Structures are given as structure tokens and as C-alpha cells.
């Protein structure tokens, strides 16, 4: 088997790490490398939590504290072996993370970082007040790690323990991101609406990264306790919480390897400053902190996405993703027989305070039909759409799918019925590849969870999902852009991409919100052809559209709204002549 070229730097780095302590380097370099390793673990957690998941946390140092204190207490007061306390430390970290996470992931907007600062500080102060934890002075006399009686006292020996954990964590985190669950997590950043519409459980995804970040922080704390062999609350306060974030951002908060790079960069720069500055300016004043602050600002001004993207440019490019062709086919839904009622909107009403946006609207979408929902601006089209997809809740009335009520269901539950949608303001993940964006649509067609992804046991399923995504991309004609970041696409292509993503969900019905907006004439014709083809395959479509010309030639059935009420419905030709429609459209102009 030929090694992938892009793996070479990684293998070289690991080889370098393996021989590093054996080189004739000053012992302090080892100590520094150990500190870098410990910080990297926390920073990797932050990359997943903040850089990928969009949850800014300044409280990670508190989880280090839980890991460190757990083993400190158990080994000193109860004589546990350090290896026994490892799972216990991680467990305590996770156990604390669950309730904290449940609270934290519910915090919105600016409340989130403050929330993490608040509990981070409360826990930090608590550490220093508890008798069992040795109050302010902490716990001393923690035993070193040992294997068969050989204690890991030296910096060299614990170096290997630390870095094995760092590399395993980094690879595991990379695996996690490059998976079905990972796509759900990565989709959190854009607000998560798109992810939710394809069945990702947002709260669960947030909780997963939160707990993951907590566990790796606790791991760092456990290692820290056995390296320092004394523990006190100082390193678990807000200062370190901020510093970990700083490392993640300097490294590039979206990149796992950036976390390691950022930790190394920050710690090495601090070290250099501490040694160089007194020689430059004398020992009379302490300018290290000033220089470090200025340097930090300068780095962000020069590289606001962090330093890793610059390093990554030096690496050989990633080869094109190979998608195996001989994969198991995904199960497909049986489509409802043509003409049977699929979606039924019954006297749906939505009021915002006193304003009635949708007033007792009723209509039906039958299987195998393309139904258009049209009306002037402010007619209530988008609100109706949101009522069907579960983003807005009904004030009264009901929406049902094949006779089952959808009322009160979340977008995620609605997605499970095979109802797939696109968005008026396209919600794609610009940093993710086109293929991965589409694969997000197939989320519900896979089942691999965190552990399987982390351990890379999800490959067969993952290949199936990617193959499906690739198929849908070819189907809509975007196959050639597969490996490009989705953000590179033109607006029209992004709309098509959203359709491909919806198709990857194996839908019985597509809900398209203004799919033709921003498309050129030729693109519109291609879109119409695609929708016609889907109709032939039995897929139903409900589309909200502005472009009358596009709609008229395409749909089987037309529903017209004005000021929140249904003013006409029927075949396009009939509706076009309907006096109320004429009045609504022309009246608005005249």
C-alpha cells in the first residue's frame, strides 16, 4: 500500500516527537514540550467546542481542575494507583460536564461566553475553599505515574505519556469531525438551522462537543497532576481559561493541528520573552507581558484565522477524495402512490402579537405533484413555509403528513418523515467541501455515533453516505466541484447545492424556498428540468417562488396568498385569470 503523500508531514512530526527526548537537547525543552502537550489537549477540545461548534468557552480550565483534583485526592488520601484514577478523572470531568453542558448549550448569543466565565470562576473559587482539596495550598505528594514499579519521574518519561495522549486525542478528534456526527457538529456554527432541518439533534451535538472538550481537559488535568505532583487551584482559574482560548485562536480555532501549533507558539514565545527581555531591557522592569500582548495583537492583525492556515500551505495538498464505487446502496423510502394526499395544511394560522401573518390557510400537496406557493411581498409565503417545516409554531390549525399530524414537531422530527427543504437565504457551510455539505443531507440515513467515529469504525457507512452525496451532486450537475469549499460556489450553484443536499435525504417531498432567485435564465431552465425529472421519479415538490414565469410553466397546482389569506388556488392557467390574483398582483403595481 502506498502511503498518502499528505500524511508525510504528520508521520515526520510523530517520528520527530518520538526521538525528541533522545536528542541532546537541554532538559528544559522537554519540560516545555510537556507543558505544550498539556495545553494542546485543552486547546484541541476548544477547537471542537469553539472553532468548530461555535460555543465559546472560557471555563475549560475548571475541567482540568476536576481531572487533577480527582486523581490528587484519590492517590494521596486513598492510595489509588494513578492508572486507576485515569478513567475516574475522566469520568468526573464528564459527569460535571453533563449538567454544566445542559445549562451552557441553552445559553444563547453573548450569554454563552459569560455563562462559561461565571461557572468557571465559581468552580475555581470553590476549589480553593474545600478542605478535602487542601484549600489554597492544595494537595502535595501526588505519586508519579509508573509502569511495573518504574516511576515516570523524569521529564523524558512522562513526555511519551503526554504526547501519546495528545496524538491519539488529535487523531480521534480529526476522525470525529470527518464523520456523520462531525458534520452535524460542524454545522452548528452557521446557527444549526440547516443541520436541524436534516435531522441533526442540535442540543445533542452541542452536548457531545462540550463533553468531549471537558474530558480532554480533565485528561490534561490528570496528566498535569502526575507531572507536577502537586495541585492547587491557581492554574484552574479564568486566566488559564482565557489563555487556552488564546492558544486555540492563535493557532487557528478551526484546526485541530492548529491547537497544538498555537499552544506551542504561545508557550515558546513566552519562554523566549522571559529569557530575552531581561537581557534587552535590563531586569529593572518587567516588559514580558507588554511585549506578549503587543505580539498577540500583531499576530491577529497579520493572520486573523490563526497561524495554522499558513503552516498548512507548506504541506503537500490533500489528494482528491477517493469514493469507492462498489459500496452498499442505501435503503430508499417507498414513495407514496401518485395522487395520494401527502401534505395537508388545514386552517393554519400564525399571529405575531396582534399581527396575523397567516390567516386560516388550507391547501394540499399530493404525491407526485409540483405545487407552487406564490403571492406578493409580505403575503405570508415564508411564514407558511416555516409552519410546515416546523421552524415557526402554529397559533391554530394543523399541518399533517400522510395523515399524521406534524403540529408541534421540531424541524428534526419533521425531517424524519422524508420532508427535505432548502432555504431562502442559503444556509451552507462555506468552509466545508461541497461533497460534505451534501452528505449532511444524508444524516438520517446513517447511524454511526461518536464512539464509532472516534475509533474510525464508521468507514463503511461513511463511504456509503459520501457515495450517495457524490451521486446527488452528479445528478444536479455539480459533480466537478465536489472537493471545493462550498463557499467558492456562485450564488446560483449554492441554490442547486442546497437541492442536492435535500435530495441526499431521500425525500418524499422537497420544500424549496425561492429556488430560482439569483439564477440566470439558463440555470433556471436546468432547474426546471431537474424538478420535472424528480416529479417523474415520484418526488413531490412544494416551492415558494417569486418568478411567475418560472412557476407557471412548471407546477401542477398553484396556491396564491395575499395578506396572509389564500385568495386563489388551482391549475396555473386558471389561477392566472382569477380576478383576485390579478388584483393582488396588478393592484400592487397600480
Amino acid at each position, binding site marked *: 500500500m502506498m502511503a498518502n503523500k499528505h500524511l508525510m508531514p504528520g508521520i515526520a512530526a510523530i517520528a520527530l516527537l518520538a526521538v525528541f527526548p533522545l536528542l541532546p537537547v537541554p532538559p528544559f525543552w522537554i*519540560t516545555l514540550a510537556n507543558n505544550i502537550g498539556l495545553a494542546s489537549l485543552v486547546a484541541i477540545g476548544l477547537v471542537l467546542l469553539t472553532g468548530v461548534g461555535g460555543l465559546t468557552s472560557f471555563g475549560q480550565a475548571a475541567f482540568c481542575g476536576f481531572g487533577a483534583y480527582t486523581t490528587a485526592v484519590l492517590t494521596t488520601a486513598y492510595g489509588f494507583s494513578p492508572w486507576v484514577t485515569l478513567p475516574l478523572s475522566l469520568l468526573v470531568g464528564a459527569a460535571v460536564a453533563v449538567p454544566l453542558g445542559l445549562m451552557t448549550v441553552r445559553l444563547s448569543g453573548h450569554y454563552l461566553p459569560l455563562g462559561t466565565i461565571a461557572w468557571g470562576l465559581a468552580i475555581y473559587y470553590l476549589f*480553593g475553599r474545600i478542605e478535602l482539596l487542601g484549600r489554597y495550598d492544595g494537595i502535595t505528594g501526588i505519586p508519579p505515574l509508573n509502569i511495573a514499579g518504574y516511576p515516570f519521574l523524569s521529564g523524558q518519561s512522562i513526555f511519551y505519556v503526554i504526547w501519546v495522549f495528545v496524538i491519539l486525542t488529535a487523531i480521534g478528534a480529526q476522525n470525529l469531525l470527518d464523520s456523520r456526527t462531525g458534520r452535524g457538529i460542524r454545522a452548528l456554527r452557521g446557527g444549526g438551522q440547516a443541520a436541524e432541518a436534516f435531522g441533526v439533534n442540535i442540543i445533542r451535538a452541542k452536548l457531545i462537543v462540550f463533553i468531549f472538550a471537558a474530558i480532554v481537559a480533565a485528561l490534561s488535568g490528570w496528566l498535569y497532576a502526575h507531572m*507536577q505532583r*502537586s495541585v492547587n487551584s*491557581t492554574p484552574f482559574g479564568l486566566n488559564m481559561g482565557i489563555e487556552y482560548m488564546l492558544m486555540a485562536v492563535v493557532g487557528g480555532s478551526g484546526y485541530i493541528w492548529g491547537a497544538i501549533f498555537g499552544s506551542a507558539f504561545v508557550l515558546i514565545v513566552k519562554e523566549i520573552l522571559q529569557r*530575552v527581555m531581561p537581557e534587552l531591557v535590563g531586569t529593572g522592569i518587567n516588559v514580558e507581558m507588554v511585549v506578549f500582548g503587543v505580539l498577540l495583537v500583531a499576530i491577529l492583525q497579520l493572520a486573523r484565522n490563526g497561524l495554522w492556515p499558513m503552516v498548512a500551505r*507548506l504541506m503537500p495538498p490533500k489528494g482528491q477524495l477517493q469514493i469507492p464505487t462498489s459500496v452498499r446502496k442505501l435503503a430508499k423510502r417507498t414513495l407514496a402512490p401518485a395522487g395520494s394526499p401527502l401534505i395537508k395544511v388545514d386552517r393554519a394560522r400564525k399571529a405575531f402579537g396582534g399581527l396575523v401573518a397567516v390567516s386560516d390557510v388550507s391547501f394540499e400537496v399530493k404525491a407526485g405533484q409540483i405545487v407552487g406557493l406564490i403571492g406578493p411581498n409580505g403575503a405570508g409565503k415564508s411564514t407558511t413555509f416555516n409552519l410546515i417545516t416546523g421552524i415557526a409554531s402554529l397559533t391554530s390549525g394543523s399541518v399533517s403528513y400522510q395523515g399524521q399530524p406534524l403540529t408541534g414537531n421540531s424541524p428534526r422530527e419533521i425531517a424524519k418523515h422524508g420532508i427535505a427543504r432548502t432555504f431562502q437565504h442559503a444556509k451552507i457551510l462555506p468552509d466545508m467541501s461541497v461533497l460534505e455539505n451534501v452528505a449532511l443531507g444524508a444524516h438520517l440515513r446513517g447511524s454511526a455515533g461518536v464512539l464509532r467515529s472516534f475509533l474510525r469504525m464508521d468507514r463503511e457507512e461513511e463511504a456509503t453516505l459520501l457515495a450517495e452525496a457524490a451521486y446527488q451532486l452528479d445528478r444536479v450537475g455539480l459533480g466537478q466541484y465536489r472537493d471545493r469549499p462550498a463557499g467558492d460556489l456562485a450564488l446560483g450553484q449554492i441554490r442547486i447545492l442546497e437541492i442536492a443536499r435535500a435530495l441526499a435525504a431521500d425525500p418524499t417531498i422537497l420544500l424549496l424556498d425561492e429556488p430560482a432567485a439569483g439564477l440566470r435564465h439558463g440555470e433556471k431552465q436546468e432547474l426546471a428540468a431537474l424538478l420535472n425529472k424528480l416529479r417523474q421519479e415520484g418526488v413531490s415538490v412544494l416551492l415558494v417562488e417569486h418568478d411567475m414565469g418560472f412557476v407557471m410553466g412548471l407546477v401542477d397546482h398553484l396556491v396564491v396568498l395575499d395578506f396572509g389569506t389564500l385568495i386563489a388556488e388551482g391549475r396555473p392557467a386558471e389561477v392566472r385569470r382569477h380576478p383576485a390574483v390579478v388584483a393582488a398582483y396588478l393592484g400592487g403595481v397600480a
Partner: protein
Amino acid sequence: MSWEDFMKNRFFAGIAAIAVMSLPVFANPALADITIGVTIPTTGPGAALGIPLKNSIELWPKEIAGEKLKVILLDDAGDPSIATTNARRFANDDKVDVMMGSALTPAAIGAAGVAAEVGVPHFAISPVPPPVAKGKWTFVLPQYSSVLAKRMFTRMKQDGVKRVSFIGFADSYGQQWVEELKNTGKEYGLEVVADERYARADTSVSGQVLKAIAAKPDAVFIGASGTGAALPQIGVRERGFTGPVYVVSGAVTFEFLRIAGKAVENTIFSSGPIMVAEDQPDDSPTKAEGLAYLKAYEGKFGPNSRTQFGSHVWDAMVILKKAVPVALQKAKPGTSEFRAALRDAIESSGPYNATHGVFQFTPQDHYGLDQRGAVLLTAKDGKFQLLPEKK
């Protein structure tokens, strides 16, 4: 990206330049004759302790017993992790013969751990608790609270104090004093009726002061250091408390007097003798070194710049000047034999008449100070004075 591009990229060129520049920094230092590693907080919450220490280190001699002195001073910002890292580096890279630090207790504990592990004589510049001071390699320079407490509590008993309200730092230092007050204080008939804590950077201690006074104490006891002690001192007077106030040694600085102003009347301070070296009787064993230190320090940093903290490292030098020649007879600096010999010599070469008292280290006692290390003071006109003994 090719190598040329790489070098053209100004950013990476910058990083490369920094890396190259830093190479000598990381290289092993040339072995000086006697190497001392000091880790103290010159930034962060302990900077008020660390900076006078740093200044005092500048007053150290260039050599001891003909051996040149190389001093490596690192900042630990009061963080035990950094202090431990610094100590490891002193031990492993710089191969120091002696290490000192840190000035805050948790950080000093961290450094003591490394000293014990690698076998380097270590001077803690903070009153670390007994389990740490029992360590073979660690010697404690500042007075442990019990040395100061005995003198203070005796005086409180003489003053007729029974009920005491404690207001102190919510840290290791405050904790040490409240425990002293609760445990040893009992023997002097003292009862702690309020135990209030605050942080140095708190902007208000009104709640603590109100509660301390509401407990109707005979006296208020302040367990805080530096200007941080001024807030409760002013607070209790503002709230009309007229009884005596007792303040621990950490607060005995001129900055404290400057801020507390008129509020220090009827306040008694415990202190090391250094703050009033001039006022000591001529036969006092601490006078000569005290005056020498003050002359050097205030000569360099200005009149009235003395603090309670700076001279601890001067004391360390007093000890080393006597112990190093003894150790030199056994081994050469830079060897583990020398470190072991020095450790033994520190234990056996006392007593050391230093600025903060007379150190007499023994294998059982690494605090070394007795009652000569404690004096009681009052403040008048912005100056500290020895408190006349009560008969």
C-alpha cells in the same frame, strides 16, 4: 510552497529569525562557579512581594568565598505551575546549587516539591506550612505565623482582649493566620467571634467590616498583606470602631501607612525587626545586618522604600556566606556532592544573625527563627516605631 516562497514570506522569515535568535537562549548556560535560581512573582497578584525581592537580589555580592555567583531570576506570576516549571529548569538545565522562591505559598510549595525531588537546597520566601518545611531540602526564610503570633497574642492578652474579629485575605496567608488565631489563640484566652475574608483586589470590604463589628469584638485582627490591608483598617475606623486593631507583618510597609493615613492610630503591628532596624538596641543581633541592608536598599531605591519582604533574600545571602565556605571544603559547586554538603552546612553552620531574626536551622527545624524574629510596632506620623513593652 517552495523554499524560496517560504523565505519570501515575511511572516515566516520573522518566526525563523526569532527562532534563530532564541537558540543561544535555550543553550546550556556556561557553568558559573555558584549558580542560584530564583523564581518570584514580579507580575500578577504577588508582584508587591516579588518586586522588592527582585530589587534586593540586585544588592547581592558578586561572589561568595571567592566563588563567582551566577543568578538566574524568573517570574512565576504567583502561579504554582510556572514556579514548578521554573524550578525544574533550574534543577535540570541550569544545574543550580541553590534555588529560592516563590513568595506566595502555593507557588513556594511547588518549588519545594522539585527541590526535594532533585536534591537542591531551597529557600522558600514564603511561610510554607509545616509538612513542606519538614522536607529535607527546603529552608524557610520568612517567619512562620506562629513565631509572630506568640508575641502578638501575648500583647493582646495584656491589652485585655478576649473577643477578636478576624478580617483577612481569602488565600493561604489569611488562612494561616486565622488558624493560628483559632488554635494558638485559645491558649491566650482569645475567641474568634467573626471570620471574614476578602481578596486584595476587592474594591469594598464594607460587608466584612460591618459583620466584624456587629460581633462586638474587643479587637479587630487583620490578616492581610501590603496595601491590601488598608481597606479593612480604614473600614473599621470609618464605621466607628475605637478598640485596638492588630495587623500582621505582611502589611508593615510604608505604602500601607500612606494609604491608611490617620486610620492607623491605636493599631499594633507584628513585624520582622527589619522595618525598625535603627530603633533596635545596639546589642540586638539583628541590628547590624538590618542597617547594612537598609543602607544598601534605600541608598539604591530611595529613602523609605524598604518593605517587609525584600530583605528575605538578603538573609538568604547571610546564610549562604557562612554555609558555602563550609560546603566548599567538601565538594565543588555544580555537583550533587556540593549541593548535599551545602544543605548540611546550612543546618550546621548557624546561628545566622540576619535582618529578620536569628536563624538556627536544625534537621528538625527548617524555620529556624525564634522570638528574636518578631517585634511589635505602632505607627506614628507615617513611620513605624517599636512598641514599648507592657509591664
